């Protein structure tokens, strides 16, 4: 029997005036699994994750967390319900230290708002070590870190502050090859914990095949294919990635020019 889903999205639709950004999308995410959400630019990926993370409210449809119906009125609601979103810009401040970024807005304080800096340094160090980066100096400014390390910081922060569903918005884009691998390793380590469901948004088919357990393909706001790794074959994935078009068709189209 399949494990119970952590988050289930049923028939979610989002309209901006006359424009339907997301149309009747279903989605199931399970703990200890990476669910790749693929689609070309404009396929509705961003709108969907903004609905999941509470930035937008769906026009219709339902979100269940552990079988309980939830509606998120704000990002704060969603994050309280255990949805941690790591956006592309990571919400990280370059000039501030690792620890100060890790606890930004949620600092640990004692009386009179005094920061418990040693404790915070320790937690930031330990949490990042758990998913693969050993920082000798948590007072180091984030600006000196590589892009992959910054991703790790943002992911570790989301997990520490109670994310059960981790939404990663194109974490490998805008990174060099080696750093992309670092991020994929980090995702794998989070997956290995077994208690966190990961939604991995990407338009890189290779990355999704390396780590995903389950796929959902979006095109023009609709699901055009969905299934586990076993159910879909490599060819399928590539075809669905291109919005349902065959590579052969694309070659023909290009040849015409």
């Amino acid at each position, binding site marked *: 029997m399949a494990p119970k889903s952590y988050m289930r999205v049923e028939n979610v639709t989002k309209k901006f005036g006359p424009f339907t950004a997301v149309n009747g999308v279903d989605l199931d995410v399970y703990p200890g699994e990476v669910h790749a959400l693929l689609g070309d630019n404009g396929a509705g990926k961003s709108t969907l994750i903004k609905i999941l993370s509470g930035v937008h409210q769906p026009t219709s449809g339902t979100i269940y967390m552990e079988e309980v119906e939830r509606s998120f009125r704000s*990002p*704060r609601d969603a994050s309280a319900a255990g949805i941690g979103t790591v*956006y592309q*810009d*990571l*919400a*990280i*401040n*370059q*000039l*501030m230290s690792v620890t*100060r970024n890790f*606890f*930004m*807005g*949620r*600092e640990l*304080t004692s009386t*009179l*708002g*005094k*920061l418990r*800096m040693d404790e915070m340094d320790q937690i930031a160090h330990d949490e990042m070590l758990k998913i693969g*980066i*050993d*920082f*000798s*100096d948590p007072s*180091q*400014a984030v*600006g*000196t*870190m*590589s892009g*992959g*390390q910054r991703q790790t910081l943002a992911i570790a922060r989301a997990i520490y502050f109670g994310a059960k569903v981790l939404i990663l918005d194109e974490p490998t884009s805008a990174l060099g090859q080696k750093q992309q691998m*670092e991020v994929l390793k980090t995702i794998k380590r989070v997956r290995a914990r077994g208690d966190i469901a990961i939604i991995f948004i990407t338009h890189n088919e290779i990355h999704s095949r390396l780590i995903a357990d389950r796929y959902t393909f979006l095109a023009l706001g609709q699901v055009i294919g969905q299934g586990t790794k076993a159910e879909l074959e490599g060819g399928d994935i590539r075809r669905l990635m291109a919005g349902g078009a065959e590579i052969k068709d694309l070659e023909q189209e290009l040849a015409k020019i």
Partner: protein
Amino acid sequence: MSERSESDRLQNESWIQRMIRRPEIGSFIVMIVIILALGLASEGKAFNALGLKNNIAIIAQLGIIAVGAALLMIAGEFDLSIGPMIAFAGMSMAIMLKWGLPFGLGEATPFTAFAITMCMTLAFGWLIGTIVVRSGLSSFIVTLAFWFFLRGLTEVCFRLINQNTNVSGLPDYKQESWFAEQMGGEVFGWLYDGWFWIGQKVSAGLEFTAGMAKDDKIDLINYLSFLNINRKMEQWVTGFDARLLWFIIIAGVAWYVLARTQIGNWIYATGDNKESARANGVPVNRVKVGLFMFSAFCATIFAACQVFDTNSSDAAKGMFKELEAIAIAVVGGILMTGGFGSIVGVVFGAVTFGLVANAVFFIPWIDGAWFRVFVGTVLLAAVFANERIRKRITGGI
């Protein structure tokens, strides 16, 4: 572990390297150079009993407003209304002291005049901050508008109520009012008392050992002007201006809040990238409004020290002070773009500026306008240095 990881590329530094890379180091070196240069050029007069008092007075005065300006700049905003706020607060206190409290509330005491003025300036600070965060306009333009507004309002109030652009000849409230004494009086008298006591011992020793003639001895004592003794062999200076204590308190609290508390983290986060700060739950708008109010608070303390020290006020008070405060903050290592800097650097900047501003009194052959030439040069150098630091941290170098 044989495998090299990304974090290995950051080399571990010795404490000397760490010190050299601290953001305050530039302003510290400039300060030391100025202290030595001024000491030599004035033949020590800048740091004798009276010289130190005068220098500290101006350092503390500039430092108080520079701390307010610096916190605001770290949060990514400017306040050009500091100078006019000083003039407005001074006018408000002096007029209340002379003509009584508004709405027929009777005679003003130094404390009631100060308290009501503080309420008004904090309200202005709140208004400026609220306009900036609600409109999203640049604080440069909003506070420039308040620069004109408050300068004009101050002069109008002076003319309407006092038929003159100043109030002078107020009674010396320091004699009776404890509060006025804390603002315009003297502090750390024990330090000068001790200095005087040492001076007496030294001069008695000289008398005893050398058996000099009285005139020679006076010459010698004048030469050794670091002794706190005047020509009549009496105590020369009795204490520092009270604003030194205010400067220490304000800078100390600001340092603690910025470096050690949650609000400090919010200030840095707000100035660095306010969108990511907001996404993480930092109340960005409240931080900014609060700091505009703090800047107004510092300006009011500045004005209160001035009014109760001189027992007067006029509409031209605080001229250029907003620019000097910003310049000190920049020289102290605060980034123009916000998100970075320390109060320790600002204190060094204030010492440097205060000494240079006062230098003309100790070095007679120097033209006072050199002060601005110096400010301009140091400011430009500081901006370049700060930009280098920013690039280094964000990986540009």
